């Protein structure tokens, strides 16, 4: 009888434990590696067009473009994962003066869309000053220590940029962008994206719709212009650098620290304008929003 009680108690414990343990599924992961190297000459450009790709761009002191790709397919059924991986294509080729790098899913006529989770992990080494144009969606972008011009179009992506010495132009939609150490002209067009930037040494222009813009302003800042439609803008000034502020909002709010003595030129319900001017040589920050708040800290 005692044994029966013990066993019942143990069974209850196991069942109770089972309730708290989450069920899991084992996915079969099939992958394929591709390595490719292409010659690069001055005057050429690189165009990258990716989908569901985790992209990393690095620069190196070589006149070649080196590409390392891993194509991944995940599915509970191994055979389905293998078949779907075959549909995931990768191409890297030179046409004229442009090197094209892209991936896509090729579905044969009459066949169903792949059910597996398809993903691309790609690392590209570019000559340090090669101009590059990138399009990526549903993935990640990571670019560091690069001198060439960058044109990035990103949808539903997380993007990290750091130590970029060339001109940078970014168009992001439904994605998060983080970056620091921009040493040249920076232009950002964002839609429903959160943008966080630090150390902006070049002239910076941001046109944002929805989302949140956070700028860490320090002594390195030169010129910053933010036009935000239904987006909030936070300017953080931790090191108290001398910055001239020109702030305005329609149907929004402006919050400034009392110690800074901002001059409110207009403070009606629908429209607010506030300036803070130190010297002509100080950095200039201009922010205008509609239906959004401006916060200076």
């Amino acid at each position, binding site marked *: 009888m005692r044994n029966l009680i013990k066993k019942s108690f143990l069974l209850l414990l196991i069942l109770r434990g089972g309730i708290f343990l*989450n*069920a*899991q*599924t*084992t*996915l*079969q*992961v*099939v*992958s*394929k*590696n591709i390595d490719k190297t292409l010659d690069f000459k001055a005057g050429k450009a690189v165009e990258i067009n990716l989908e*569901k790709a985790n992209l990393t761009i690095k620069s190196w002191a070589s006149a070649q473009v080196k590409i390392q790709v891993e194509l991944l397919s*995940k*599915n*509970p059924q*191994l055979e389905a994962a*293998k078949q779907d*991986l*075959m549909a995931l294509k990768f191409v890297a080729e030179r046409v004229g003066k442009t090197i094209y790098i892209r991936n896509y899913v090729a579905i044969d006529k009459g066949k169903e869309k792949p*059910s*597996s*989770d*398809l*993903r691309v992990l790609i690392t590209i080494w570019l000559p340090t000053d090669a101009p590059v144009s990138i399009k990526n*969606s*549903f993935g*990640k972008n990571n670019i560091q220590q690069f001198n060439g011009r960058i044109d990035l179009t990103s*949808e*539903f992506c*997380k993007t990290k940029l750091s130590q970029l010495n060339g001109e940078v132009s970014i168009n992001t939609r*439904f*994605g998060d962008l983080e970056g620091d150490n921009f040493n040249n002209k920076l232009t950002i067009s964002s839609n*429903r994206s959160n943008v966080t930037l630090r150390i902006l040494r070049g002239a910076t222009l941001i046109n944002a719709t*929805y989302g949140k813009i956070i700028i860490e302003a320090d002594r390195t800042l030169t010129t910053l212009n933010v036009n935000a439609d239904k987006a909030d803008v936070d300017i953080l000034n931790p090191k108290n650098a001398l910055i001239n502020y020109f702030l305005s909002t329609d149907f929004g709010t402006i919050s400034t620290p009392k110690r800074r003595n901002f001059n409110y030129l207009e403070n009606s319900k629908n429209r607010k304008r506030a300036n803070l001017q130190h010297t002509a040589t100080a950095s200039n920050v201009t922010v205008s929003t509609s239906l959004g708040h401006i916060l200076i800290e």
Partner: protein
Amino acid sequence: MNHLSSFSASEASAKVPFNAYFQFMYGFKKSKPNAGYKPALGWNNNLKMEELNKNTLKTALSKLPDYPLSDSVWAGIESQLNTDKINALKTQLKEYNPPPLIWDNLSLELEKDAKSTQNTEGGYLLDNNSKINELITNELIADNKPIKKQSVFRRLSLQRWAMAATMTGLIFALFILLKRSNTEGGANLKFSTEIVDNQLLKNDWDDAELDYKMVETLCQQHIAACETPSFKTLKHELDELNQARESVKNAIGAFNSDTDLMMQLKNIEQERAVILKQIIGVL
């Protein structure tokens, strides 16, 4: 007839009737002494003469009648020849291997002959290479000369070299194609497994879709409200979010394990919820 084998190929191929040539060389048919000939300076007159009227001589020779010699004449000539001396001289002759070009030309000629034989003899093809080799070997055996085997490479004609090179190229190309198709066909596939929490695979994003479809129903009841600019602005935003939501849902698929995309979808859903509340407020 052994002495004839020392004739050069050009002599043998000259189109002069043999008997006429023989008569000219051995003096059976006498012509006028020194007629048309001038002795070369410093040379024996009988051995080296410079022909002044070559064409006339050739024409005259070609017009000479042919007479077959009787066997007794040949027997007489043979008896006069010192065969021992000739054999001794033959052993002193140097041997030279012909350049590969000769073999190539021979092969080409034989192939031409073989083709013509095949055409004229109803498809019968002679193995000319083996035949000529046999003839040469027999002659060498008859002359007690050492048989020098020609290397295989020398015997190969240019055409055969070309054929061999083409075949090698085809085999190499086939190898490359097979290797590439293997690579793309899954020869270098890697396999592993990944454990995913079922919460991530739970596809319950459409549970609240009926609420959003309710907007259309409400607009049929509140037509005037749905024509206002504020409603249109909100509806435009909602449509944009709906479109984005569908894109992310497609990207997530059935077996997604990437939480970043799910967070994106969650944010879109939250924004949609805010817009829906505003739309309901307008209506």
